[in-house]
C-alpha cells in the first residue's frame, strides 16, 4: 500500500507517460566533451549503422535508472515513486519540472531521474529549442542531497550565434531548483574542454588541495610568458603580480588570475586565459560565500540574467 505522497508522485509520472509531447535529442549531443575522439567516432558509426540521428524523448519527468539498472513502464514508476518520496519529499515531479521550465522561459523539457546506489539523484535534462522539437541542450546534474551539494556534471548546448548567453542562462535557470532541493554548493571540474579560466570568472574556487597542485602549472605558464623577449612592460608587471598570486595559498587568487590583462592579448589570447591553459581543477561555489555569490551575480547580470533566484538561494544558505 503506497502512501498518499507516493500516489501523488505516481500520478505525475502517469501524466508524463501519457504526454504526446516529445523532444528529438540529436545523438551527437550525447558525446562527452572530454572523451577520446576515437570513442566518439565509434558511437557515430554505431548510430549510423542503426540508421538513427536522434533519440525521441517523451517530455516531462520520467524514471530513468534506479541503483544502476534501467526500469521501464508502470513498475519503474512505482518503484521510483517510493524512492522519490524518501529522497525529495518536499517536491513532486510536476513541481520540479515546473521549476526547471520557469527558469527556461517555458521551454519543453524531457527529464530522466537516476537514483544511484550511493544515494545520489542524477537528473538528465534535454531542453527543447524555442518553437522546435529538437533539443538545444543536454544537461546532467548530480545531487548529493545529504551534503546539500550538486555536481554540474554535464552540459552540451547547440553551437549557434542565436544562443548567446545560453551557457550562463542554464546556470541561472536551475538555481530555483537548487533552493527547492536545499542545495547550497555547486561542484564542477574545470578545464575539461576549454581552459580553466572561465569558471573562476563565475565565482568557482578550486578546492584547497587542488589549488596547491595547480600553483606549479600556473607558475610554469607565467615563466613561459615572461620568457618572451618582446613582452611589454605593462604585461611584465602583470605577470609579476601573477607570480605572487600563484605562490600564495588562497585559492581565490585564481579569480584575479582569470581576470588578468583584460585589454592586453598575447598571441591573440587574454593573459588570464593563457596562464590558466592546460589547468584542470576540481572546485566549488558555495552559496554561503558572499564574495563568490557576488562574482556569480555580476556574471549573470552581465549575461542578461536576473539575480533574484541567486539572491534568494544565497539568503537561504546564509540562514542555515
Amino acid at each position: 500500500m503506497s502512501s498518499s505522497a507516493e500516489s501523488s508522485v505516481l500520478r505525475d509520472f502517469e501524466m508524463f507517460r501519457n504526454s504526446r509531447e516529445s523532444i528529438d535529442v540529436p545523438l551527437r549531443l550525447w558525446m562527452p566533451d572530454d572523451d577520446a575522439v576515437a570513442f566518439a567516432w565509434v558511437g557515430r558509426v554505431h548510430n549510423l549503422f542503426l540508421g538513427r540521428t536522434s533519440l525521441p524523448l517523451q517530455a516531462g519527468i520520467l524514471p530513468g535508472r534506479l541503483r544502476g539498472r534501467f526500469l521501464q513502464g508502470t513498475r519503474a514508476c512505482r518503484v521510483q515513486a517510493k524512492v522519490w518520496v524518501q529522497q525529495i519529499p518536499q517536491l513532486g515531479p510536476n513541481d520540479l519540472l515546473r521549476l526547471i521550465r520557469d527558469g527556461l522561459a517555458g521551454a519543453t523539457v524531457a527529464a530522466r531521474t537516476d537514483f544511484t546506489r550511493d544515494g545520489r539523484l542524477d537528473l538528465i535534462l534535454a531542453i527543447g529549442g524555442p518553437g522546435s522539437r529538437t533539443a538545444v541542450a543536454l544537461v546532467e546534474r548530480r545531487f548529493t542531497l545529504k551534503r546539500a551539494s550538486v555536481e554540474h556534471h554535464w552540459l552540451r548546448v547547440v553551437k549557434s550565434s542565436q544562443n548567446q548567453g545560453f551557457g550562463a542562462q542554464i546556470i541561472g535557470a536551475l538555481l530555483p531548483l537548487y533552493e527547492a532541493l536545499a542545495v547550497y554548493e555547486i561542484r564542477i571540474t574545470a578545464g575539461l574542454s576549454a581552459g580553466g579560466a572561465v569558471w573562476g570568472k563565475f565565482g568557482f574556487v578550486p578546492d584547497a588541495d587542488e589549488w596547491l597542485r595547480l600553483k606549479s602549472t600556473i607558475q610554469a605558464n607565467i615563466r613561459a610568458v615572461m620568457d618572451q623577449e618582446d613582452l611589454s612592460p605593462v604585461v611584465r608587471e602583470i605577470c609579476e603580480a601573477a607570480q605572487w598570486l600563484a605562490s600564495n595559498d588562497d585559492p581565490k587568487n585564481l579569480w584575479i588570475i582569470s581576470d588578468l590583462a583584460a585589454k592586453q592579448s598575447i598571441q591573440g589570447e587574454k593573459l588570464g586565459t593563457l596562464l590558466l591553459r592546460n589547468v584542470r581543477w576540481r572546485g566549488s561555489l558555495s552559496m554561503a560565500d558572499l564574495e563568490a555569490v557576488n562574482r556569480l551575480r555580476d556574471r549573470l547580470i552581465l549575461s542578461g540574467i536576473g539575480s533574484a533566484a541567486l539572491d534568494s538561494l544565497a539568503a537561504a544558505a546564509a540562514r542555515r
Partner: protein
Amino acid sequence: MTQRNMTLKRDSTHVQGTRATIDDGFESAECALEREQADADTLTPDWDLASRITTARGALERGVPADIVRKAYGEKIFAAASAHSVEPEIAHAAI
C-alpha cells in the same frame, strides 16, 4: 536504444587525457561560457568592469597586498576598489 546511449555517455564522461576536437555542432558549457565571455569582451571592452572592481575590493579585504592588486587590475580599477565610499551599486552604475 535509449539505454545503450545513456550508458555510452555515462561510462565515458570522466575519461582523462585526450579531448574531442571534432566539430559536431554542439559545445560544452565550458566552451559556450568561454565563447560568450570572449564575444562580450570583443563587443564591449570593459563590460565586466564592475565584476573586476568587486573582486579587486574583495582581494584587498582578504589581505592581497595593494601593490599586487594595482599591478593585476591597473590604476583605474585599483582606485575604485580602494575607495571605501564607492558602493557596489555605484560601481555598476559607473560603467
